[in-house]
């Protein structure tokens, strides 16, 4: 048996690269993305004020702080931050995922435990159970979504210069609304566990009472975001809003 003990210097650099530090970077990047989502949702809800309000809002974003920042300045800062957050988040997620797979050895049968009597764990939630694959779903969705909303690359239901119209065109089709719905449920689940987890990771879960509160916040937040985003596609699809 090899005794693997580290020197103090090795310990310090190992601590910087530790699972705890990785998880913290995930929490910070995740929270940044969450803030973006909240802002994004606020913008989306302008949809109900009509085409002009929606497109105008989006336009307004581009000129924010002009002339201190160039046109599109805020947008680009935001995009850089978001992209960095996604990269950090995904890097950390993949690294931890790999570590977890190695640590939870599989036996010859391909499973960790042979028993099938406890597939769901003792208490773990569906949300925590689906973080990783849920995250993958999210990334795939975001790529498709950005391609749809940004430069008119994919335009289900018909291209248009107005993002309002593009959204309406798309959400009239069930095969657009369905993946959005799935994606938003994934977002909800991801945030349900993610928000509480981020707080715990950053050291805020210090007491069972606080923990209960965080869990309530996380559920409320996840529900708010899922429902908030879904109002637009559902309004278009079921109630013909915007057409």
């Amino acid at each position, binding site marked *: 048996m090899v005794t693997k003990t580290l020197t103090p210097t090795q310990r310090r650099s190992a*601590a910087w690269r*530790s*699972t705890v530090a990785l998880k913290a970077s995930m929490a910070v990047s995740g929270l940044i993305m969450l803030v973006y989502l909240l802002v994004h949702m606020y913008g989306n809800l302008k949809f109900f004020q009509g085409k002009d309000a929606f497109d105008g809002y989006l336009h307004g974003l581009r000129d924010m702080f002009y002339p201190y920042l160039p046109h599109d300045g805020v947008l680009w800062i935001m995009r850089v931050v978001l992209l960095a957050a996604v990269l950090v988040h995904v890097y950390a997620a993949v690294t931890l995922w790999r570590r977890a797979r190695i640590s939870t050895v599989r036996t010859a049968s391909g499973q960790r435990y*042979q028993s099938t009597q406890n597939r769901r764990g003792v208490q773990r939630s569906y949300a925590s159970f689906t973080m990783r694959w849920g995250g993958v779903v999210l990334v795939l969705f975001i790529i498709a979504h950005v391609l749809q909303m940004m430069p008119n690359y994919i335009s289900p239901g018909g291209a248009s210069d107005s993002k309002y119209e593009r959204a309406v065109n798309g959400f009239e089709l069930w095969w657009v609304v369905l993946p959005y719905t799935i994606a938003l449920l994934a977002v909800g689940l991801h945030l349900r*566990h993610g928000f509480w*987890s981020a707080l715990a990771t950053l050291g805020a879960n210090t007491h069972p009472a606080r*923990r209960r509160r965080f869990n309530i916040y996380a559920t409320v937040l996840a529900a708010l975001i899922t429902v908030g985003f879904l109002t637009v596609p559902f309004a278009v699809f079921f109630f013909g809003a915007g057409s």
Partner: protein
Amino acid sequence: MKITLRVWRQQNADDKGTMVTYHVDDVSPDMSFLEMLDVLNEQLTLAGDDPIAFDHDCREGICGMCGVVINGIAHGPENTTTCQLHMRSFNDGDVIDVEPWRAQPFTVVKDLVVDRSAFDRIIQAGGYISAPTGAAPDAHAVPVPKKSADHAFDAATCIGCGACVAACPNGSAMLFTAAKVTHLGLLPQGQPERDSRVVGMVAQHDAEGFGGCTQIGECTAVCPKGIDISDISRLNRDLLGALAKGDH
């Protein structure tokens, strides 16, 4: 009661291992789970077969030596140690799956016995207070608020059994590590080494090959001593604080 057991048999670390089925009749509901295995082992021995190897010592839930995964749950259906689990928790005719803890740092030594020496090395990396024998001030020199003392005690009750690792979907030993960081970090005596302790212990935890914690909470649900998941948060906070200070 009659019980059917499916037990993981593995001759040694290099063997591949497999589940083997056994039948035990005459199981009394008052038997502990390990006593039921004793009965099976007596049967096997008399038949000239190799009895099942499993770790145990105190048989009263405190040494932390016992521990197997029963029906997929570390230490089985009750929230206690395997030695304190009794057969009255099962029904006549049940089929019970018995497997060793599984995590890459916990190599299987034989059958249900695993190597948990990684835990000792995590303690070596800082899980102590440097207090040379004979140099201690009077015990009443530093009062400790009862609340801190009680909380430190809660964390200190960890028995090092490893169920947390066996249950964690990430194979993380963070609950074990956090229990020690919390125990010592809450006491005034533990302050001087607080930063270097958490840095050393987390580094060693990772070097052993345990997974990272993503706050799933299976560990605390099976922990026979009810170590609280908030201890992990405390560890995280201590580590981030120590890294931010940078002078550990």
